[in-house]
């Protein structure tokens, strides 16, 4: 093993061994499934290719604005007789029916949809190596849509950027990668939101959205995911409008209380009993 070429020769000979033909049954099964699968439509980003001159766009915007004001006027109280039927509220998005939840260890409380089930965390989050049973989670009937809440202490001396770097490493470089690298958008592409009145960084991945809030020495992460555990998510970050709406609404129900967080368990000082 003293030379690169010797190693390459052995490694390539070893890699050449093994199956090289796909069984017909596998191809047939895939094509059967293809037959039942609809191609996803890729909607063009119309605004990027819109050839309309700026003046025309301004006029169009003004017309839309006037129409919007007119519609608002028609729907004012007392004028419902001329407006259309009042919009129906998606039961999932009606927080009045949601159930209250207080985290047993992470220092937050929230509400979750009545049709969801709550799965409190079983272990404290110690980065790296987050696993499913470390989250306070809420899921729909099929356990496809998840809302997760979790928090941990910021290591002493670590900056917010340090923590994000560690988090990224944990996700995309762990031995068993949780998500493809292409799903972890660069920090400059993240947006922002608020949680309990505090500024939060918002990251979109291929399977969901995550909001991060730093409070004193603690970092909270709240996420919404749509993942069946089998089908790999798409390779480009993006989520459905439905999941985004659910997530944004969920964030409004969250109250942070770092002082009630149980983690970390006090570590006995040396010599104490």
């Amino acid at each position, binding site marked *: *093993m003293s030379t690169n070429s010797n*190693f*390459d*020769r*052995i*490694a*390539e*000979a*070893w*890699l*050449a*061994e*093994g*199956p*090289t*033909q*796909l*069984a017909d049954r*596998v*191809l047939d*099964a*895939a*094509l059967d*499934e*293809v*037959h039942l*699968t*609809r*191609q*996803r*439509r*890729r909607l063009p980003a119309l605004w990027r290719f819109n050839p309309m001159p700026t003046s025309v766009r301004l006029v169009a915007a003004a017309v839309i604005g006037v129409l919007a004001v007119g519609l608002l006027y028609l729907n004012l109280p007392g004028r419902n007789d001329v407006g259309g039927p009042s919009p129906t509220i998606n039961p999932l998005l009606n927080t009045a029916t949601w159930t209250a939840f207080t985290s047993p260890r992470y220092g937050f409380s929230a509400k979750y949809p009545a049709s969801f089930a709550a799965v409190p965390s079983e272990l404290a989050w110690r980065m790296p190596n987050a696993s499913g049973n470390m989250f306070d989670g809420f899921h729909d009937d099929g356990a496809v849509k998840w809302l997760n809440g979790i928090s941990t202490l910021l290591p002493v001396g670590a900056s917010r950027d340090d923590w994000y770097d560690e988090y990224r490493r944990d996700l*995309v*470089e*762990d*031995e*068993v*990668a*949780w998500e*493809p*690298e*292409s799903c972890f958008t660069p920090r400059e592409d993240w947006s922002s939101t608020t949680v309990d009145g505090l500024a939060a960084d918002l990251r979109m991945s291929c399977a969901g959205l995550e909001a991060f809030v730093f409070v004193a020495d603690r970092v909270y992460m709240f996420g919404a995911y749509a993942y069946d555990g*089998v*089908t*790999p998510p*798409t*390779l*480009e970050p993006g989520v459905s409008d439905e999941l985004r709406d659910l997530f944004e609404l969920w964030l409004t129900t969250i109250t942070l209380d770092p002082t009630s967080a149980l983690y970390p368990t006090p570590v006995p000082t040396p010599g104490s009993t």
Partner: protein
Amino acid sequence: MQRALVDAARNGDEEAFASLARGAGDRLLAIAYRILRDLGLAEDAVQQTLVTAWRELRSLRDPDRFDAWLHRLLVNACYAELRRGRRWALNLRVLPADGSAEPDPAVSVIQRDELERGFRRLPPEQRSVFVIHHYLGLTLPETAEHLGVPLGTVKSRLHYATNALRAALTADARSAVNTSRERMA
């Protein structure tokens, strides 16, 4: 020819997609097996890749990059299979292999065993770089394109993978020397 098939498949032509799948199937299986080291998992990854490719084909911007795009889907399907394989590690399946390449006499049984063990210890991302570069014979920039990661990342992962496998073989060589000394003593 392939571009015409990709264009047709993007417009919903299942026959065109079936032709593409038949053309790529063997290569996909060979790559997936070499990353996953498990035929059942590799077949699942290929099947999932083909279905995902069909579903997402309209998101492929450049039809001439179909192969690279397909390889990227496959590698991500392999990562997913490794996750599932780890979760359900006891769910082993033994299926007959179709068309296996014969063992190369240039690789000793001990070397094969050490490479296999060393490779299985590699993270999925290092496995995929190693296989795409060495098995497909792609250059490092091509490997980066096929995996959708920066060139520097490819170099780094290949470096770590190579070092780990070389170390596995070196340990094997030392072990063999020690064994022969013990026998002579």
